[in-house]
């Protein structure tokens, strides 16, 4: 079973190691074919966030460091994934090259806080748009719609969907502390003890390998990454039972910035960058399809 993890790690780390191999400079997604276009001296209206960022020549972005395919930090400490590529494109539209981006880890529990404190200008971190979060921050996008699913070992024929959890209280399910999926799955459980929560999905997968939990639940795209690397050790079961539109978190009420981000996303889709970024990252996992950019929500 450990070979599973190793293959996966190797696969995911390859990108990072290739980077590290090229002299160890922090050139972001250097070497990949999806280099974001960096606008030269873009013009923005005085006083907007875009003007401030372009003026500063650098920006700080929050992302996940442990999400295969979306934001995963390799040995050399630069994250890569679909979220990272999308963020790089938006930054490029403001004249910020990938090497001028400072990446900050944005775990599920602290994303609103990072924006409220002004620690980051933007959070792109598999960040589900919902109303509670809208009270504290503004979302641009969505740029992708995921759905929650369940992953089990291939030989598990007990769990075929979330409904089977309540009838099988000995089947323990794992998710990440304080995440939306952890909250969503609660209503399907026989008792609260049937849920185990860790800080990162990697630990859930280890627990599955060790037989300490029997299922892992989170958004399908993340699980697909684990299934792809498992050489048939895991499978996804049941339909997606939620809809998770991923948005880009920015400071609350910054409508101009929000609209700018939405335009940037549209340009990314039109120019083919969106598709290339997907194919180079999360799209590498078997069983994923190239998504279409969803219609943006209204900026509020």
């Amino acid at each position, binding site marked *: 079973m450990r070979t599973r993890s190793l293959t996966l790690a190797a696969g995911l780390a390859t990108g990072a190691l290739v980077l590290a191999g090229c002299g160890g400079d922090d050139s972001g997604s250097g070497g990949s074919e999806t280099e974001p276009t960096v606008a030269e001296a873009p013009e923005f209206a005085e006083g907007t966030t875009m003007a401030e960022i372009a003026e500063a020549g650098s920006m700080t972005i929050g992302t996940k460091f442990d999400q295969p395919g979306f934001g995963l930090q390799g040995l050399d400490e630069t994250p890569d994934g679909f979220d990272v590529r999308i963020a790089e494109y938006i930054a490029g539209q403001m004249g910020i090259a990938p090497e001028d981006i400072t990446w900050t880890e944005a775990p599920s529990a602290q994303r609103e806080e990072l924006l409220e404190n002004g620690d980051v200008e933007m959070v792109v971190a598999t960040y589900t748009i919902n109303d509670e979060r809208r009270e504290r921050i503004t979302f641009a996008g969505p740029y992708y719609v995921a759905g929650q699913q369940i992953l089990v070992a291939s030989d598990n024929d007990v769990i075929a969907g979330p409904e089977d959890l309540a009838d099988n209280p000995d089947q323990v399910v794992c998710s990440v*502390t*304080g995440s939306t999926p952890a909250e969503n799955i609660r209503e399907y459980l026989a008792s609260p003890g049937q849920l*185990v929560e860790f800080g990162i999905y990697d*630990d859930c997968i280890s627990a599955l390998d060790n037989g*300490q939990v029997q299922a892992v639940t989170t958004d399908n795209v993340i699980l697909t990454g684990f299934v792809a690397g498992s050489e048939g050790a895991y499978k996804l079961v049941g339909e997606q039972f939620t809809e998770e539109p991923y948005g880009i978190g920015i400071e609350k009420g910054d409508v101009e910035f929000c609209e700018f981000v939405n335009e940037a996303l549209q340009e990314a889709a039109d120019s083919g960058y969106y598709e290339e970024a997907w194919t180079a990252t999360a799209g590498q996992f078997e069983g994923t399809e190239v998504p279409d950019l969803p219609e943006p929500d209204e900026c509020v």
Partner: protein
Amino acid sequence: MEPVLDNLDLYVSGFWRSLEIVLWAAAGSLALGILLAAFRVSPVPVLQRLGALYVATIRNTPLTIVLFFFAFGVPAAFGVTWDFFALGTVGLVVYTAAFVCESVRSGVNAVDAGQAEAARALGLTFRQNLSLVVLPQALRTVVPPTGSVIIAMIKNSAVVGAIGVSGDLFSAYRRMASALGYERLPSIAGTAVGFLVMTLTAGAILMVVERRMAVSR
């Protein structure tokens, strides 16, 4: 504090879950700690060294590392399939036992050598010596520091919540603050109060016990 009061059941159930961890860990670490202390005062050099090695290793390793080691390193390496409540508790026991061992050992060593000598001179056997003369006196010097070790363990049990035990006091905070979207300050304050109730109660009990024993001296 309103968010806490609205979700009081979350904290109350968390309190009981944490108490459960604490009681198991207290029993376990006292047992293992006393065994290790016995090793260290025994006349068998191998056991002495084993005890010393254990204490030196564990005392110099951070709790975080010990707990993660038991939660993830051990199951993967040895194929253990216990749940995380058990693994977290075992980690806490392994860590705390080193400190229990040291306080017990220093208590035994603090008994005046003349006492045991006198007992032996009177013809008491090793076992009589231990149970009638040395241990009753050692107990008095052992209880206060061991009590402090146990109180420290109660506090350390908060870290167990970080490695996958769900439903304890610390994960009550996590759930409140992230998934349910409450402000972090009141959410963590609720957890803090829960632990204060536990540690202050334990402190009060310890004080009463110490006083009792002081009187009987």
